[in-house]
């Protein structure tokens, strides 16, 4: 989707504290085209919240996005913030409907940067079929923020066939990864000061709700659990599932899809792809007999082209994730400790 949204003419080129004070400048900033760009019948332009009708099983999720740099190979913080919350709702088995959008801007952000982020937000909402209905803008002093932080929260309607719950996970279930892992985290690292390298790797950020809706339409209650392995990576999410379900998980390294370039970067920096963050990937734990069909269905989507069954739920070694390495060895895969630091020496 190509958006043609030139930045409006403005008499300021940088966001300053005044733009967050709630007064004329805040109004001016919003009237500069922000409301116009994001407009929809529900968008609460000057009130304290949005009002809409919605009924039944609802999902509600929130995330704050603090990524640095805010523009990275393959995207920016704006679309990340939309896709992230859309995906969290999808992981609840819900169809995302309404989002809130809240900015914390460090003074000094240029309007050009802000506009570019807004346009990405707009495009991402269109792709995901969601509406931004309420928002907030705060500006903090230079040195008290990091260019821009975004919070999105979202409300969605749970798919009528969805029975997503940790309770439904049982031994024998298959673990599906929807696509290559570690792509997003490595794309970000490629532009970090002190670590940077040249690469064509771009973030995999994408909205997953359409694909999720499709598998729920087809397989309904056979989809037992959905999770997107963002921070902490696949290893951490699977550990959480193992811990909370009191079951064991086996992973087969040979089946885990990783792009060659991403694998190369991980070698160089001493990182394990299992711990690297993803944005456009989800884990589905599904009944064994539908696993291959789920994979086949997912592969229709370009962003799930390398979907694969990568493991299974077992009654053995409860609360532990055990990886069978490509050469057939076994090891425990623990949760990420702290931040993943490049291992060099």
């Amino acid at each position, binding site marked *: 989707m190509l958006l043609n949204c030139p930045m409006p003419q403005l008499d300021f080129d940088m966001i300053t504290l005044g733009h967050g004070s709630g007064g004329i400048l805040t109004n001016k900033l919003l009237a500069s085209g922000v409301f116009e760009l994001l407009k929809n019948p529900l968008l609460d332009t000057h009130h304290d919240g949005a009002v809409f009708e919605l009924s039944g099983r609802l999902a509600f999720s929130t995330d704050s996005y603090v990524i640095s740099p805010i523009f990275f190979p393959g995207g920016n913080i704006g679309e990340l913030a939309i896709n992230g919350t859309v995906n969290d709702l999808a992981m609840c088995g819900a169809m995302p409907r309404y989002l809130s959008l809240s900015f914390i801007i460090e003074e000094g952000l240029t309007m050009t940067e802000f506009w570019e982020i807004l346009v990405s937000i707009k495009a991402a909402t269109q792709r995901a079929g969601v509406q931004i209905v309420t928002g907030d803008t705060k500006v903090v002093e230079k040195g008290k923020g990091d260019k821009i932080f975004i919070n999105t929260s979202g409300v969605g309607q749970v798919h009528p066939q969805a029975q997503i719950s940790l309770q439904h996970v049982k031994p024998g279930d298959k673990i599906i990864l929807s696509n290559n892992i570690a792509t997003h985290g490595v794309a970000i690292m490629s532009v970090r000061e002190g670590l940077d390298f040249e690469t064509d790797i771009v973030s995999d950020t994408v909205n997953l709700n359409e694909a999720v809706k499709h598998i729920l339409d087809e397989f309904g209650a056979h989809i037992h659990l959905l999770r997107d392995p963002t921070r902490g990576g696949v290893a951490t999410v699977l550990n959480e599932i193992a811990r909370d379900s009191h079951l064991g998980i086996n992973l087969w390294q040979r089946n885990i899809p990783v792009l*060659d370039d991403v694998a190369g*970067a991980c070698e160089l920096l*001493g990182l394990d792809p299992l711990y690297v963050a993803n944005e456009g990937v989800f884990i589905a734990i599904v009944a064994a007999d539908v696993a291959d069909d789920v994979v086949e269905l997912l592969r229709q989507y370009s962003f799930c082209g390398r979907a694969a069954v990568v493991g299974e739920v077992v009654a053995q070694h409860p609360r532990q994730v055990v990886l069978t390495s490509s050469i057939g060895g076994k090891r425990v895969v623990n949760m990420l400790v702290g931040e993943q630091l490049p291992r060099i020496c």
Partner: protein
Amino acid sequence: MCLAIPGKIQSVDYQYGGAVRMAKILFGGITKEASLDMVPHANVGDYVLVHVGVAISVVDEEEAQRTFQYLEEIGEIDELVEASQIDRQDL
């Protein structure tokens, strides 16, 4: 300790007014800069082992085969040894 990874030299350029040789090195699809100061004879196309931004060795293509051949070699050696032992026993 000492994580070092083999990569292929893509290009070489000179810094510090020609005093220092830096190279762009390809590691399975990604490129990173490294110093060639320790491998003065390395050139574009060579594989070098890079550790914390410094190439410390040129990978020897011939020697690289040895790990694949070792089992056969010792098989042969063992046979020889066995043979010689037999020989010795025979003595």
